[in-house]
């Protein structure tokens, strides 16, 4: 589903590469944690998958497409297959929960009828039935992140990318979000989650890829956060 072949990325005016000869492959339906300190290359990895940046060298394949051969006007098509969730939720404050989730479908050109069918369905999946008329400011952080996940998932993308989705949440809320991501993963969606949260990584026992200074230093099938044991 995602394949990096000897990928390096050096940002302009920087000497040290953010990613340095990374080779890895994420299969369809996998759940992968991307761990490492700030500046280890996690964000660069995710930006490359979304083609927000182009690699300095190497090849990247996402959902069967060679990104180096993807013309810029086809990038939106790629992003429709990759849902994204962020630490800061990125909801639209002037829109209701329903409108925030429906926004994706509007952008993709769904009809009103389809929107009225899909949005309640995904709100139910994320556990926010009956929250459709509320504004993001009326919700807790965990609930806001659920809305963001609903928005990312409502179009049923093949890949879900989550960049520190629990970074702003307390542990109880984080557990709820992880259960939700697990449930989404079980529908066949590939999930890549960048995180600092060692508790979550240890608990989930999923594949762990650790980056350090732009290098993959560990790729473990049922891993934990650190080398504690």
């Amino acid at each position: 589903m995602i394949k990096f072949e000897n990928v390096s990325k050096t940002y302009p005016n920087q000497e040290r590469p953010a990613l340095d000869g990374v080779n890895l492959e994420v299969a369809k339906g996998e759940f992968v944690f991307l761990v490492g300190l700030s500046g280890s290359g996690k964000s660069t990895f995710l930006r490359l998958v979304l083609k927000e940046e182009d690699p300095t060298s190497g090849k990247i394949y996402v959902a069967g497409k060679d990104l180096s051969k993807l013309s810029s006007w086809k990038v939106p098509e790629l992003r429709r297959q990759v849902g994204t969730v962020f630490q800061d939720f990125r909801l639209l404050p002037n829109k209701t929960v329903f409108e925030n989730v429906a926004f994706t479908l509007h952008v993709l050109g769904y009809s009103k009828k389809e929107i009225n069918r899909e949005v309640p369905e995904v709100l139910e999946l994320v556990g926010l039935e009956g929250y459709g008329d509320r504004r993001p400011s009326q919700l807790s952080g965990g609930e806001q992140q659920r809305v963001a996940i609903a928005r990312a998932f409502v179009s049923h993308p093949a890949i879900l990318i989550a960049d520190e989705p629990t970074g702003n949440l307390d542990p109880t809320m984080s557990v709820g979000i992880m259960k939700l991501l697990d449930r989404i993963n079980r529908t066949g969606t590939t999930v890549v989650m960048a995180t600092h949260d060692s508790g979550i990584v240890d608990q989930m026992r999923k594949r762990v890829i650790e980056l350090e200074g732009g290098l993959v230093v560990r790729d473990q099938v049922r891993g934990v956060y650190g080398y504690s044991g």
Partner: protein
Amino acid sequence: MRAGFVLSEVGIGLRRNLTMTFAVIVTVATSLSLLGFGLLSNAQVGVMKDYWYDKIEVSIYLCGDLSEAPSCSSGKITIPQRDQIETDLKAIPVVQNVYYESQADAFNRFQERFKDSAIAQNVTPDQLPESFRVKLKDPTQFAVIQSAFSGRPGIDVVQDQRAILEKFFRLLNVLRNGALFIGLISVLTAALLISNTIRIAAFNRRRETGVMKLVGASSFSIQLPFLLESVFSAIFGWTVALGLLSGFKVLIDQRVAPLLSFTRFFGWDAVWIASLQLLGVGLLVAALASVITLRRFVKV
């Protein structure tokens, strides 16, 4: 994206940025009006040229007893010379018609024109020159007549009335160019304001555009609401300008035209043509300013 969704986003954008929207509308309205006045003064110069050039003639004064030009050295023109000139004149393609004014005709006309003046009492027919009044199909073709007849024996002087009007029209052209220049400058100002407004709007809505980008909206559909907003503002400003120009036309018809009977004024057709040109300019400027700004500030 569906049209309804795009339009509702445009509506939200216009309302949220109400003061800027208002500024854009007013600037577009005033700049298009100024440009419109320029276009109308251009139409007016055209109308006046048609009106005056239609009336002017080339006068060929023939030698009389009092003529002093070298071509008159043999004295008053003979009748065969005069007939030959008339025949030659009529053979020239640009000549529309030729009218011969005898000394008696000239005297009558002189008496008519200066009937209230003492000068009329002291003039006798033999003091006035006989002449050919030549109407040209194209008044700018004076040089053809000038070169063919000036200095020919029996002809005193060839006079083009157009030369007198030229100075007047040169002045009018300067005024018209000034009006067009001011109009174009203010249209440029409007373009810069539109560009700045879009920058601000893009900054205000970076959240929305960021989310649209994330969920895979094409650049076109992200930029379309901004583009439509400035185009709608431009159309709104244009309707205001159209109202101002129509008011200007009514004012001229009712207040100015009755006072200045020596010329005609531009008609409503000129107002409509100018309006269509202004609509074109307004749309083009709004769209261009938007597209150039959006390419820089709303990237995918």
